């Protein structure tokens, strides 16, 4: 339906030589016929077919070959006319004949959109005006002048006769010849028997009517049409019949037949035109036939136009219907059915349009440079295959630019489309249309339809319709791709979710659980139950964290918070377990939240273990530090003990005296009390250091803490001959910290400083301890020694465990100091002094609001 049979540049598959011969023969026969149809003694014929045959030939052939056909007609012209007419006239007449054919063919090509078609009123009127009136009119002037000059005939008579004979010839012969050549005999062969019968009846009726009209009635049909002659009126019904039922082609044939009969009858001096003067008779006949022919031809064209329009409309309707069925079939098609449906509908569309092949090529979703091709041919679906993009580079390029490709013949391909041209030759493709499959911004591929075989071409107008089909296919493919992607993404998401060891639940905006993963094993919180309510229940049962959790989740659901996290303990059947819960909003229009639940018991235990280990290690190093300090501690205690003992013994002696000095004894006792207290303090400080306490953060003053440690080490410094300078900040440095741990840090730094100077001359052994407030936010303690300093490149190693420069050191002191300071949110570092020794410092934040 959408494929039309067309001639290619040759006439219906004939070879050029055969065509040329045919033209020559037709011209000769036409000329002989023209001679017969003359009213001697006038030269022009009543009907002169050769010119019409030339015109038809030129209309059917490409302009660049015209000279060939005109040349082919020359021998025929000479052969036909030389025996009858003088040579000069023969040549001249040929020239005028050619002029007429050229004017007609060139004019029609200029004016008409389809010079070889007579199926619309516009085309027909164009033909009548240009081909049948103007061309004979123009060419008759030189023709008549020639005849008048060479034969001495009347110029006006010759002009008139020639003009009308050529008008009649053009009107009747040109459409008949052109249509016969263009549409060919297949149309006739394909016709139904009823059409043959009708044509036969028409032919018979027309013959009888013509005979009755033009012929000798008494000879042909005695008595049948007796009575006064009824000019032309009898013929009209038959001609109308042919125009209505058989179109311009049928009409043309009938007109030729009628004209021939009329002319034969007229030239035989019989019939209605029996006038004394032959020229007048010819003229009457020609005018009658021409005037009858023109409106009839137009009528036939109008009828044909209407018929084609209604046929186009019906076609359009069928296409629309097909399109709507196609859309309906694809609109709710599940992705899994897609390929089966594509194959089915490719077939339906292809069959419906009478195509030779239809192809849907989709850019591969996995291979960037491949097209997956599904095809249908009248023999059935073709197995899908892939085509590399570089096999059809030009078409690929056009598709990507969203261009529709319409190729009516291989010659329409641009010169650089080599690969495509090869493909046309390979598959015998005659014509094709390719429309892009577009989905939004993307081109998914192309829909291609086409014909094979030399004489089958696609009609233009259905490109638009094809685009609509492509749209349906494209949206279906797009949807399939999206469904596939969605399915893959869903699959991946659910795989990820189920692989998580965390329990994950999705809540709607009311807090109702709408989905959980496999690891979600929270008791009483199943899909469909309200999770916030579950926490309220927990709170009512006495768990203090329940209320916070419920409030936190509610806040996230209400979009008041971006997230909520909490850790809590819960008892399961065997032991207390720790859980961590994280709540984040669900990013979808309806709101909701995602809950992630993790059992962090192991982590908690590990943390507790690590904390315990750290404390044990800290304690151990503290004890070992104190062990090293044993001598100085003994000194510290022995001082007051020695004083107490001496005082006590002195007191006893005083009491032994005859008159004891009671004032002195009171003073002795008071000193004893003081020394005892002093010894007690030493013991207390020691006990504190030795205590294996749990970490406990309290507010404390770093100044006091440092002062205590310096005091504790006073004896040690003395023994080691080290002078200690303490320079404390004027303002109290209140920090939040664990007293024992911080004491340990200061102790470590002081002992290290003194150790560092063991080999220094006595007078250089100075440790400066300084506390200060930096920028109002940070307390800093620094311990400066005058030892050898830190070896270059060892700065980073200093605080690592087991790093030591001392022969008996364990290398744990600074490492523990660092972990303590970091646990207090502080920093510890060491630098070399400009002159000598190193300074170890730590800094930690002042407790909020404590700085003054």
């Amino acid at each position: 339906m959408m494929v039309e049979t067309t001639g290619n540049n040759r006439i219906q598959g004939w070879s050029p030589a055969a065509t040329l011969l045919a033209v020559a023969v037709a011209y000769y026969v036409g000329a002989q016929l023209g001679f017969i149809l003359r009213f001697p003694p006038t030269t022009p014929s009543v009907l002169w077919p050769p010119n019409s045959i030339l015109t038809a030939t030129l209309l059917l052939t490409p302009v660049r070959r015209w000279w060939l056909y005109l040349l082919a007609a020359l021998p025929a012209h000479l052969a036909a006319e030389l025996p009858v007419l003088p040579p000069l006239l023969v040549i001249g007449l040929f020239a005028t004949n050619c002029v007429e054919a050229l004017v007609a063919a060139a004019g029609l090509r200029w004016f008409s959109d389809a010079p070889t078609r007579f199926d619309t009123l516009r085309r027909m009127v164009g033909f009548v005006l240009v081909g049948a009136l103007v061309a004979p009119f123009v060419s008759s002037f030189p023709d008549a002048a020639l005849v008048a000059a060479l034969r001495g005939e009347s110029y006006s008579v010759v002009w008139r006769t020639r003009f009308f004979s050529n008008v009649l010839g053009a009107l009747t012969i040109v459409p008949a010849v052109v249509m016969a050549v263009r549409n060919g005999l297949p149309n006739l062969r394909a016709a139904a028997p009823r059409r043959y019968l009708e044509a036969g009846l028409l032919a018979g009726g027309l013959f009888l009517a013509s005979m009755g009209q033009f012929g000798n009635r008494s000879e042909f049909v005695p008595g049948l049409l007796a009575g006064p002659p009824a000019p032309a009126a009898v013929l009209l019904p038959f001609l109308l019949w042919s125009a209505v039922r058989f179109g311009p082609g049928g009409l043309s044939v009938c007109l030729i037949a009628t004209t021939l009969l009329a002319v034969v009858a007229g030239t035989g001096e019989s019939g209605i035109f029996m006038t004394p003067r032959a020229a007048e008779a010819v003229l009457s006949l020609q005018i009658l036939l021409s005037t009858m022919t023109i409106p009839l031809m137009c009528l036939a064209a109008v009828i044909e136009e209407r018929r084609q329009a209604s046929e186009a409309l019906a076609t359009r309707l069928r296409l629309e219907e097909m399109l709507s069925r196609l859309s309906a079939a694809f609109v709710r098609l599940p992705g899994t059915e897609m390929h089966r449906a594509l194959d089915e509908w490719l077939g339906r569309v292809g069959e419906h349009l009478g195509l030779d092949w239809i192809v849907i090529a989709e850019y591969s979703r996995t291979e960037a440079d491949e097209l997956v091709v599904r095809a249908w041919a009248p023999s059935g679906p073709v197995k899908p295959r892939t085509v590399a993009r570089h096999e059809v580079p030009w078409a690929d390029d056009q598709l990507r630019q969203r261009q529709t490709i319409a190729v009516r013949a291989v010659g329409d391909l641009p010169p650089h489309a080599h690969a495509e041209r090869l493909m046309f030759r390979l598959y015998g493709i005659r014509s094709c249309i390719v429309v892009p499959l577009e989905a939004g911004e993307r081109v998914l591929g192309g829909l291609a339809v086409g014909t094979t075989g030399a004489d089958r071409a696609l009609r233009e107008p259905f490109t638009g319709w094809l685009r609509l089909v492509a749209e349906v296919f494209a949206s279906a493919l797009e949807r399939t791709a999206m469904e596939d992607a969605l399915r893959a993404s869903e699959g991946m998401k659910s795989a990820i979710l189920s692989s998580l060891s965390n329990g994950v639940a999705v809540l709607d905006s009311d807090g109702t659980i709408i989905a959980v993963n496999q690891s979600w094993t929270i008791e009483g919180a199943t899909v469909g139950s309200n999770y916030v309510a579950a926490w309220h229940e927990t709170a009512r049962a006495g768990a203090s964290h329940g209320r916070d959790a419920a409030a936190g989740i509610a806040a996230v659901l209400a979009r008041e918070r971006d997230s909520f996290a909490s850790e809590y303990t819960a008892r399961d059947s065997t032991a207390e377990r720790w859980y961590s819960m994280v709540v984040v909003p669900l990013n979808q229009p309806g709101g909701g939240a995602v809950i992630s639940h993790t059992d962090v018991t192991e982590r908690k235990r590990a943390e507790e273990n690590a904390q315990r280990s750290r404390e044990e290690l800290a304690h151990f190093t503290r004890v070992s530090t104190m062990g090293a300090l044993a001598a100085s501690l003994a000194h510290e205690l022995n001082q007051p003990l020695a004083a107490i003992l001496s005082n006590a013994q002195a007191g006893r002696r005083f009491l032994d005296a005859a008159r004891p000095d009671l004032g002195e004894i009171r003073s002795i006792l008071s000193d004893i009390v003081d020394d005892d207290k002093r010894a007690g303090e030493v013991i207390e400080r020691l006990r504190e250091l030795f205590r294996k306490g749990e970490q406990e953060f309290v507010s404390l003053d770093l100044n006091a803490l440092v002062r205590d440690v310096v005091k504790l080490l006073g004896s040690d410094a003395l023994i080691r001959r080290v002078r200690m300078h303490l320079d404390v900040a004027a303002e109290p440095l209140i920090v939040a910290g664990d007293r024992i741990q911080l004491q340990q840090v200061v102790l470590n730094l002081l002992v290290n400083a003194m150790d560092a100077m063991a080999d220094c001359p006595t007078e250089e052994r100075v440790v400066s301890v300084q506390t200060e407030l930096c920028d109002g936010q940070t307390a800093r303690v620094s311990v400066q020694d005058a030892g050898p300093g830190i070896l270059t490149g060892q700065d980073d190693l200093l605080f690592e465990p087991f790093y030591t420069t001392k022969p008996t050191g364990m290398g744990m002191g600074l490492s523990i100091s660092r972990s303590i300071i970091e646990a207090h949110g502080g920093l510890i570092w060491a630098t070399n002094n400009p002159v000598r020794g190193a300074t170890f410092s730590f800094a930690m934040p002042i407790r909020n609001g404590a700085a003054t």
Partner: protein
Amino acid sequence: MSRNGARIIVVDDDISVRRALSRLLISAGYRVQTFESARDVLMNGDLGRAACVIVDVRMPGPGGLELQEILLQVPGPIPIIFITGNPDVPTAVKAMMAGAVDFLSKPFSEEELFGAVEQALALRRASSDQGRMAHRRR
């Protein structure tokens, strides 16, 4: 009583120890001068008339051993008794080798103290007798 009137110098950085020691010695009839450092006693001490020096081994600045070294260079050596809060053998040996009378570790009893003081006084007397006899022989 021979001990009456014997002048004893006590050097200790710990005031509490100084006070207690001086009280004990006074209760036994000695005259006592106390100093808080070696430097102090060298500058202000009446070393010429002192019968003995009781000195703490460790003090800020020069300690007992340094004081002993200096006193050894003085003609008519003064007996020295060391007292210490953290006794250690090397120091004790060093002190004794250099001629110390005794090396007492705190806390010490009055018997230990007086024993050492008596020994020192005896030494002092002996050295002064020797000096006197030598003087007479001349």
